[in-house]
């Protein structure tokens, strides 16, 4: 057990760097890029924490993980205790330790960041969760006595899992319904193996089974069963809708129907859920990217995941095409940095206006225009406009459209009492997450629009609290 160093010494320690798989090697495989901190590095990093009296990092965390406490436990060498501390607020520590945008949350709020570099809270969270998993001694929190109340959770992504975990801890009986054949939602079909190994998601899901959460795959709520049937015929006392923002947006330009043009959702689903990258043993096909030019349209994390997947599938050129400038790209800095190291090309201030095909209907080229940034609008975002006479044609073989997603209407369309806004997102009270229908709650991307894993988990937690209140009081 290490003693805490004096502050003067602590601030001299440089921030731990995440070891990575070498770029020239990793572009030929789908194994994880980040390798995780060694124990000594983690302990040294934890020593850097200034143990603030009122830790800003906790305020910055959407689920309120007791960061100061778990970091102290790392300093003390009590890694399993640290893991249990995280689990009290976050059911998926090995996931969030990998995919959270910590720079905008806990680490963004860390006071050390003002004068030097912030504490590497994400790396520490990952270290603790991986340590726990490798030892096989999962520190599951204690469950409350059974209440006998059944809750149906629709969607097994981060919001649904987080809600299910909290409800189980409070003694309720949650069942998670998933449309696909595997549990995890976007963690399974969306985020690639090299950023989040699927084995980790499976193990977190298994931990939730141990906590008493039930899972039903292959069940499309709205088709296989409706919310009314769940409540009236199958005895569920409450329902949480966490279906995410799964409807892909297209550019609506000519030629988007061509073979070789994918939505990022389809491309990533084929690669991740269907394991098309392992073509020797899996049946699902994907358009051959080997020695071809693949363009990904968009500048977010999904675009980075798509373009880096294409590179690993053998693309000769893998190119991001984004209509604003590099500074405006919404992707995490780490993802962009990883992409650049892997030889991804960036064509910013460029916008496709047409896809062109051959006589068999296969994509062969795209037409783009160059863009320029204008004055910032009221929201502070710079406008962007087309430069006249800037159109050019470029031969490409595959195009992946990653310009965002919308609300999938399946559940709403079969539950008429649910109020939605003009974009199809469900109205829910911000605190209680109650919808317009009694006993039904909603949260995550289906309420907020596409956001992050951890914000969805935060919504799942609030929903669990709201559902708990409702089940205890019976008042709507």
């Amino acid at each position, binding site marked *: 057990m290490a003693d805490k160093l004096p502050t003067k010494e602590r601030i001299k320690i440089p921030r731990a760097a995440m070891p990575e798989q070498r770029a020239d090697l990793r572009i030929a495989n789908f194994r994880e890029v980040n390798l995780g901190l060694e124990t000594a590095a983690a302990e040294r990093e934890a020593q850097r924490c200034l143990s603030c009296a009122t830790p800003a990092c906790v305020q910055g965390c959407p689920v309120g993980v007791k960061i100061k406490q778990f970091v102290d436990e790392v300093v003390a060498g009590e890694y399993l205790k640290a893991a249990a501390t995280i689990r009290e607020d976050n059911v998926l520590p090995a996931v969030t330790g990998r995919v959270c945008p910590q720079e905008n949350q806990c680490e963004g709020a860390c006071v050390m960041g003002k004068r030097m570099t912030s504490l590497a809270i994400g790396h520490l969270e990952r270290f603790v969760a991986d340590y726990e998993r490798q030892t096989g001694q999962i520190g599951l929190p204690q469950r409350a006595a059974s209440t006998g109340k059944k809750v149906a959770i629709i969607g097994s992504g981060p919001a649904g899992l987080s809600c299910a975990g909290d409800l189980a801890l409070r003694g309720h009986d949650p069942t998670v319904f998933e449309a696909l054949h595997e549990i995890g939602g976007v963690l399974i079909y969306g985020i690639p193996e090299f950023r989040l190994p699927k084995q980790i998601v*499976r193990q977190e899901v298994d931990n939730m089974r141990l906590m008493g959460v039930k899972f039903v795959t*292959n069940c499309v709520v709205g088709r296989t069963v409706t919310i009314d049937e769940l409540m009236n015929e199958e005895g569920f006392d409450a329902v949480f809708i966490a279906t995410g923002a*799964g409807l892909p947006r297209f550019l609506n330009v000519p030629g988007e*129907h061509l073979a070789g043009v994918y939505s990022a959702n389809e491309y990533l689903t084929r690669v991740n859920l269907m394991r098309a990258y392992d073509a020797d043993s899996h049946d699902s096909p994907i358009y051959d990217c080997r020695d071809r030019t693949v363009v990904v349209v968009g500048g977010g994390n999904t675009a980075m995941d798509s373009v880096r997947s294409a590179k690993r599938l053998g693309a000769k050129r893998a190119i991001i095409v984004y209509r604003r400038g590099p500074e405006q790209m919404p992707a995490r800095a780490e993802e962009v940095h990883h992409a650049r190291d892997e030889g991804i090309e960036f064509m910013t201030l460029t916008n496709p206006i047409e896809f062109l095909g051959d006589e068999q209907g296969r994509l062969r080229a795209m037409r783009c225009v160059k863009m320029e940034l204008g004055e910032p609008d009221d929201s502070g975002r710079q406008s962007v406009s087309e430069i006249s006479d800037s159109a050019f044609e470029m031969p490409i073989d595959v195009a992946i459209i990653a310009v965002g997603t919308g609300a999938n209407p399946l559940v709403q369309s079969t539950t008429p009492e649910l109020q939605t806004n003009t974009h199809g997102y469900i109205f829910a009270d911000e605190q209680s997450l109650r919808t317009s229908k009694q006993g039904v709650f909603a949260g995550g991307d289906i309420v907020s629009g596409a956001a992050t894993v951890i914000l969805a988990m935060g919504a799942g937690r609030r929903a669990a609290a709201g559902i708990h209140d409702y089940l205890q009081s019976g008042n709507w």
Partner: protein
Amino acid sequence: MFPIVNAKFLARDVKQLEIHAPRIARKQLPGQFVILRLHEQGERIPLTIAASDPAAGTITIIVQGVGKTTRLLNRLEAGDPILDVVGPLGKPTDIENFGRVAIIGGGVGTAIALPVARALKAAGNHVIAIVGARTADLLILLDEMRQASNELHIMTDDGSAGDQGFVTTRLEAVMKRQPPLDRVVAIGPIPMMAAVSRTTRPAGIPTIVSLNPIMVDGTGMCGGCRVQVDGRAQFACVDGPEFDAHKVDFTILAQRNSMYHDHERASARKLDASPESELAKVRSACRLEAVCAPGPAECERLEKATAQSVSSACAVDARPGE
């Protein structure tokens, strides 16, 4: 896991499979489909539901062995499990009393036309069924189709059964009769549906086709099944699978459906060369989390029974094999 309770060939390479899937059986309406996956390394493919029996908790699909997965399905027998079946997906067929309706089934499409014919006849329509195939031994469900219609016309390309010619030849003749047709529903290969669409367009007869694009999830998430209808992209899985034939771009549909042809041919060849290893993957599939949690106790009992009969080495709580 979804056990097959009955399996038999209806024609060469065309097999009828009755699958235990109580939740789907309870909900299915004509025109809807399921997506299934045979084993952990399998692909997801859409298949239209030909019939369902809510009391027995079963659905029936009729499969023509074309690609790898459909050929593997054709090798399965009663007692074999299907790992994943999800549905019923898609919008059901519009069923009302339109008046005189021609229902056209091409090849294995007849299996999908049958429940539509039944429902339309029950709704009071005068149903004229026209079924066609290349040769006599590819014709299926003739007796059932006869019962589900007021008149049945059979066409084969080579004249080996019924009359020689295409279904559109007979459709043209039927269109000349009085009173005129109020609606046409065509289900079959893309060239057949395109030909029916061309035939009815000049007369302006409302014509519905059931499209079969490549799909992955079947819930509107991936957009892989997008088809051009009236110049706009529509998702067949949630906006369809049935569309106004006169607005569908069949050329684009055919092009998109041939996107993976080389891959499909190669995997079908591989399967035919050594089907045993693929069959073993199906038969060792064991996963009980899938359908049981809140479902009927009967389902759980069946699952356990199947799991045990399929492989005694397969523990009840086993995780899917990697």
